């Protein structure tokens, strides 16, 4: 084992495991956010590496927009059962019923509203740390965020007032009501994630692989036809071979044309791809140059 070279994946894995253990040891009541997407799938394997043969020292939680792809929800439940860990699900629907979220239309993207339900759940369970799968290569606001990202009692991120983060010494202290978002795979890229999925032989939801699907062309991207997205006048639904690079709200998560049928195909495609993950697949990130920064300031992950 020790004759094997210490590769970048080993270095990233060791850093992430170290971060997970710091959270467990220093935070009173952490939770790991699991959506069924590839990044949080990697988080779960890292948690296994960090804590087995013990159990996870935190529950898992999914903030469900109820606009999710059914394949992803099925995968989520299957994976949680396999791990034998506890999953908490809090739904946007509950926040809508309580009047905490007011939507303009049923089919509108629910991504921005996840913050409300997340903050409600943090308050309900008194979580002081939420472990999430965000990466710095995703987006320029994330590139400037700490691994341990401190949030005030309204869940707000203040980019100009972040705690200095040096070496691997993380300051995990919070006052009551405040919490920390922790991103153990901050330093991973999309390609690293897929290489790790390949190395660890991790299962991922089917929709990451090429499949035939009814889509419509809208603006620069493709949108999957579903009960939430129907062709407008002048638009034509067509069947194409596509795959998803991210799995989020069905109303704004765009597939890309692809024939990648295996993890190895996806790695080859990712190594060559010329468009960023969010640029290609999230219509809600394209609305303004600073949309992620603004959402994060409001408590978004």
């Amino acid at each position, binding site marked *: *084992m*020790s004759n094997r*070279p*210490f*590769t*970048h*994946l*080993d*270095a*990233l894995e*060791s850093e992430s*495991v*170290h971060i997970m*253990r*710091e959270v467990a*040891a220093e935070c009173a009541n952490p939770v790991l956010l699991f959506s069924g997407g590839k990044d949080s799938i990697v988080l779960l394997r890292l948690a*296994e*590496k*960090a*804590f*087995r043969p*013990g159990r996870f020292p935190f529950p898992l939680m999914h903030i469900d927009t109820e606009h999710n792809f059914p394949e992803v929800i099925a995968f989520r439940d299957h994976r949680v059962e396999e791990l034998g860990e506890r999953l908490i699900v809090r739904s946007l629907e509950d926040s809508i019923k309580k009047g905490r979220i007011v939507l303009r239309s049923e089919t509108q993207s629910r991504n921005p509203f996840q913050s409300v339900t997340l903050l409600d759940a943090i308050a309900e369970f008194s979580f002081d740390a939420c472990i999430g799968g965000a990466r*710095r*290569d995703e987006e*320029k*606001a994330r*590139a*400037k965020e700490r691994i341990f990202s401190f949030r005030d009692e309204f869940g707000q991120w203040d*980019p*100009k007032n972040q*705690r*200095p*983060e*040096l*070496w*691997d*010494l993380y*300051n995990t*202290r*919070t006052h009551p009501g405040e919490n920390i978002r922790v991103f153990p795979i*901050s*330093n991973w*890229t999309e*390609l*690293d994630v897929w*290489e790790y999925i390949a*190395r660890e032989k991790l299962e991922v939801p089917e929709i990451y692989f090429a499949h035939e699907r009814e889509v419509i062309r809208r603006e620069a991207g493709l949108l999957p036809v579903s009960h939430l997205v129907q062709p407008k006048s002048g638009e034509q639904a067509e069947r194409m071979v596509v795959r998803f690079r991210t799995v989020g709200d069905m109303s704004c998560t765009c597939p890309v044309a692809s024939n990648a049928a295996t993890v190895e195909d996806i*790695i*080859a495609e990712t*190594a*060559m791809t*010329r*468009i*960023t993950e969010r*640029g*290609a697949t999230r219509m809600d990130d394209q609305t303004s*140059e*600073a949309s992620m*920064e*603004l959402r994060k300031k409001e408590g978004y992950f």
Partner: protein
Amino acid sequence: MSEVEKIPFEQAELLRFITAGSVDDGKSTLIGRLLHDSKSIFEDQLSAITHTTRRRGMEGVDLSLLTDGLQAEREQGITIDVAYRYFATPRRKFIIADTPGHEQYTRNMVTGASTANLAIILIDARKGVLTQSRRHAYLASLVGIPHLVVAVNKMDLVDYSQSVFDDICKDFSAFAERLNVHHIDFIPMSALLGDMVVERGDKLNWYKGTTLMDLLENISISHDVNCEDFRFPVQWVCRPQTNELHDFRGYMGRIESGSIRVGDAVTLLPSGLNSRIKEIVLYEGHIHEADAPQSVTLTIEDHLDISRGDTLVKTGDIPQVTKGFDAMLCWLSEQPLDPARKYLIKHTTRVVKAGIGRIDYRVDVNTMKHEPVEQLKMNDIARVGIKVQQPLVCDDYLRNRATGCFIVIDESSNNTVAAGMICTSGN
């Protein structure tokens, strides 16, 4: 798409580096150039910055816009914090900590430098070695970055003159003799035009050294971690207490330096009790030997009372166990140091109460002169005397970064107010 060959990323190493220089030195342009020429810029990013360049009434593509992050910064045209960038070549994966060079941001440079294997110091060929170049070099050496690269940029504006370059090398070397830097490389370049960054270009034929990218890909980093002294601060104790693992006690943590084998004699600190390594456990199974910086689970032969904050070392290779030490401190907070107050220190996996009762001197980072001071303000670097309530298991920072570093936390605000480097034997 066919120009990208199949890349064996599985074998790639990870190199972390920082770039230091002011806005005018072309630092953002250099990073943009590295990303662009290594084909790490995506089409949508490129089209966004092309668009912005045009909106600002300029021609072409301003690569420096790539590293602009936040709305607040774009409005003011400044870089306010450390930003992390990623790119890869077939040989290595790179993490860049992009740190602003402006005077008030010493803290950001120290932050970015703390995890770096290498620092690139940018010098404008027209201006030569400036006060801020000295400051950047001093900070890089203070934080113990093993490799320093001096990038003499904007060579195109001095007619690619060899004598300009040679003079800068001479000036810088003379200054660097006073620093704790083992190895410096000098590279002439034009980040704007791409000479000697990834491609050699045809204007600098008198220069026989490597391009910046060549150097980044090939510089040896395997000895950047201390390979000799085994140090294992315990992060988490695993006691599953299931039927089949009823008596299992695993000590989880990261090997911060050195290596360990099954059967090795180990000493638990600060208690000083001895035992032997019974198993090295990974998720994948048991292994015989492990090295820094692997995260592992260890079990030992004897039942010792071990908890988070304790450190396992090899018997016979014992670090200092001390309640008082000297340190170089970089003050990070707007609120000045109060020598009468108690702070918290986080060192490895241990958090202790501490008092910083003595300030020996402050270092003027521009001249490296020592000055007497009564208190420390943001961006000050000083040698101090520290007393802690519980003993720390530590090494000199220059010998072992991982067990020589600490942060200072203000208990009332919970902010990280200082970064420290332990130095018991002078500096």
